[in-house]
């Protein structure tokens, strides 16, 4: 008997694990570790890149040093890097050097090197918000002007000329306003979030949360993080379908997750998109996602603009011609695309 009792106790302990609510600390540390290790591979290549391009310095060109995150990080970053490389060329009057790292300390080292090399402008997409004060002061002392792009840092605004960023909250706001404009009687939303704590997740979630709190006919059927992962999104939506709950909106915080969600809908023969039962919303304007919009399979895709180079170019031109930058924080224009109005031209222009 007691033998059975002991085994029952062991089993009970396992059930307790199912019942008890717990924090998410373990997943957090694991993911930071992974991120930290992934970076190292690209760093050496980055250093070589800088060295090679430094030697090609010439007379009248404006020397810029560009510090970016690893272009392998995401489609967004790839598009961002390609945009930078296309803008800062000799034809456009620039002598550009690039350095890539996802690690703040390595970015700082690269910045110091650029300052020693005497670049005119230091363009920076910082890996981390903290720790930049002293190096920016060095830049100021050396007469190097600093322009931040894509990400802000915790430093005194006098230390940089301009900061060109996306406003994630505005992205969420635009999307939610579009959704409110659809005039449904009831909004039963499956909200699939990105990696918790990321700027994109926080901004895009905030608008939804506020709307749901303010309106009785806006309900969250489920709100789960799929960590930008299509397959997790598919499982989350599958689980809602399996449990037979009603929903008419899928608000996914990136395109991949929207794709996963749609796969689950297709499996259950739930119609979606224009004239469908479920509204599909995604973010990031991947080319394939915009094509889904054009085909009417999805309804909305919000842009997260990776094309900061033209804004930076404008800022540099203003400074070079003796002008002043009035607004230090420049928020980029970001569109939301509606399946009913999107054109092939939009896809060619905005798809990443």
């Amino acid at each position, binding site marked *: 008997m007691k033998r059975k009792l002991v085994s029952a106790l062991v089993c009970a302990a396992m059930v307790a694990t199912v019942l008890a*609510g717990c924090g998410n600390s373990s997943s957090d540390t694991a993911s930071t570790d992974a991120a930290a290790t992934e970076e190292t591979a690209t760093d050496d290549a980055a250093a070589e890149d800088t060295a090679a391009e430094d030697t090609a310095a010439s007379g009248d060109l404006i020397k810029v040093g560009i510090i970016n995150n690893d272009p392998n990080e995401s489609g967004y970053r790839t598009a961002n890097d390609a945009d930078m490389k296309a803008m800062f060329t000799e034809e456009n009057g620039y002598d550009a050097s690039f350095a890539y790292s996802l690690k703040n300390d390595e970015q700082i080292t690269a910045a110091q090197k650029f300052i020693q090399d005497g670049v005119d402008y230091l363009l920076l997409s910082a890996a981390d918000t903290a720790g930049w004060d002293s190096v920016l002061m060095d830049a100021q002392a050396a007469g190097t002007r600093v322009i931040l792009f894509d990400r802000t840092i915790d430093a005194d605004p006098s230390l940089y000329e301009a900061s060109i960023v996306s406003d994630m909250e505005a992205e969420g706001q635009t999307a939610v306003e579009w959704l409110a404009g659809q005039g449904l009687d009831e909004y039963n939303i499956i909200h699939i979030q990105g990696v918790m704590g990321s700027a994109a997740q926080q901004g895009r979630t905030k608008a939804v949360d506020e709307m749901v709190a303010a309106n009785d006919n806006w309900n969250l059927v489920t709100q*789960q993080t799929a960590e*930008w992962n*299509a397959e997790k999104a598919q*499982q*989350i939506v599958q689980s809602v379908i*399996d449990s037979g709950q009603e929903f008419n909106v899928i608000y996914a915080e990136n395109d*991949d997750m929207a794709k996963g969600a749609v796969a689950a809908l297709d499996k259950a023969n739930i119609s979606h998109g224009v004239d469908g039962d479920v509204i599909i919303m995604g973010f990031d304007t991947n080319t394939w996602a915009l094509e889904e919009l054009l085909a009417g399979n999805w309804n909305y895709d919000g842009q997260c603009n990776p094309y900061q180079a033209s804004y930076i170019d404008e800022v540099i031109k203003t400074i070079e011609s003796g002008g002043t930058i009035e607004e230090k924080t420049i928020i980029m224009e970001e569109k939301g695309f509606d399946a009913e109005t999107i054109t092939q031209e939009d896809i060619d222009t905005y798809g990443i």
Partner: protein
Amino acid sequence: MQTNETKNAGVSGFFGRMIRKQVMIPLAALLLLFLFNLIMDPSFFKIELGYNSAGNPVLSGFLITILDSGSELAILAIGMTLVTAATGGQDISVGATTAIAGSVLLRVLCGTNSRPETLQAPIIVAFLAACVVAMLFGAFNGVLVAVFKIQPMIATLILYTAGRSIAAWINNNELPVVSDESLTYFGEFIPGIPIPTPFFIAVACMIVIGLVLKFTNLRLYTQAVGINENSSKLNGLNPVFIKILSFVILGLCVAVVGLIKVARISTINYSVIAKDIEMDAILAVALGGNALSGGKFNMTASIIGAYVIQCLTTTLYKFQVRSDALPAYKAIVVIVLVIVSAPVVREKFNAFMAKRKVKEAA
């Protein structure tokens, strides 16, 4: 009285035998989860026949979801069990190598164009290419472990770190999208068959490994190497070969998983595909009651362990537990398992049972 007593002994003897069976550990966990769901919401067990948007019949329901989504894990558990048994360590690079296998598969399917209208190569060719590459990476891990005697977890840390970058590099950092429908047959449904294909693939893998274990000496040799490398060497085995072989088999499993993962969404995302699946695969082996320090193993128990993990995941999704808390629940399961299987606890337990017997006799 007399008859009653013998009956009791018979029953407890039967239970005792059952409990001692290794396969009972994951089965008990599975039954518990089922019991929990039965009490909380019996609709968990409902299976419906419906039609997908293409008009093909599909089965749906939580149980089908578990069988479907658990396939990858079950396949990986097969390879991971062998690696664990032979080397006494685990391969933590399976998620990253899955990304590599998936990337190779798409590279062959798409050629140089990342958005082809038609497939540039038959799927079977792409799959074989992925198998070769994944087995080579497996062999790389195996050589580090077997020849250079690096601890498996450290050796596989190399690919764990670099694997996803390699995967991105194989496709020039592009994200190929396959529009051909035949690829989805491997990740979703074959038209006309309402059971998800990944389940069939997993069953095929189980049958293959079952036959291999039955008709070859793989089990005996793997266990011999795992239990005592030196004595197996003295008995004419080649531990280096056996260890590398186990990693190569895992590589093959990884290629199959890569096919399923890629087929599910017809594209790939290098940074998140099969993310953290290595931890689940190791957990499946542990849940199967296998010693993570190597030696004897029970393949069936590992595979059931994999489905237990998927069942736990699906249950938590059903009850809308925050999905970023999932690893915490899994961690608790691991802790319980590790403690229960620790020699100290086992000894105490045995001592307790012995004492009880003495008491009963008195």
